[in-house]
């Protein structure tokens, strides 16, 4: 039973448009929510995070939204750039546990 779901295994977006990646979790015990980006043959790199006391966090072109009641978070990338093409993992964490989603492969088409 997956505790963290990313229901879109892949997503294609035109350069300059908005990319929206979604993540759903089942357990309300989690306090922190993170997004990581992974290029082929490299380890994941941290992108942006949000704590459960907030509903939005913005860093440049990246914004993470958290809807605690729906147990849903999303990552918005705007404008999307070809270099954003990668696999994006959401992760949910408490003080003693972190669970990653299965990832969404984003392709930004020039």
């Amino acid at each position: 039973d997956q505790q963290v779901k990313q229901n879109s295994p892949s997503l294609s977006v035109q350069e300059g448009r908005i990319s929206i990646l979604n993540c759903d979790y089942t357990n309300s015990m989690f306090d922190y929510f993170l997004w990581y980006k992974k290029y082929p043959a490299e380890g994941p790199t941290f992108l942006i995070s949000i704590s459960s006391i907030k509903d939005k966090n913005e860093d440049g072109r990246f914004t993470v939204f958290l809807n605690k009641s729906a147990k849903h978070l999303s990552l918005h990338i705007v404008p999307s750039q070809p270099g954003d093409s990668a696999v994006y993992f959401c992760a949910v964490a408490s003080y003693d546990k972190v669970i990653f989603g299965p990832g969404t492969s984003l392709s930004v088409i020039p």
Partner: protein
Amino acid sequence: GAGVSQSPSNKVTEKGKDVELRCDPISGHTALYWYRQSLGQGLEFLIYFQGNSAPDKSGLPSDRFSAERTGGSVSTLTIQRTQQEDSAVYLCASSLHGLAGNEQYFGPGTRLTVT
């Protein structure tokens, strides 16, 4: 080095052999994690070390898997009597403190192939 390093980068082994994978975390990071990513799958948590506390082994898939972290720094993940289903990329990560809200810095991974 500035980042998390892992060795070897690639390992091919015969079924039934033991393998050891090494992780050097970022200096000063108290927490260290091992994950596994099988082909087409997400990141599967294996084990977590935090300071001098006993590690959280809840993610280890079988008793053939074990891990150590000596001196609070370098860690080795050992897989005994390897099976073909162990083939995956094994990723190590470290963070300055424990899990909650701390970003993890990942190494490049070790690609293990069991033939």
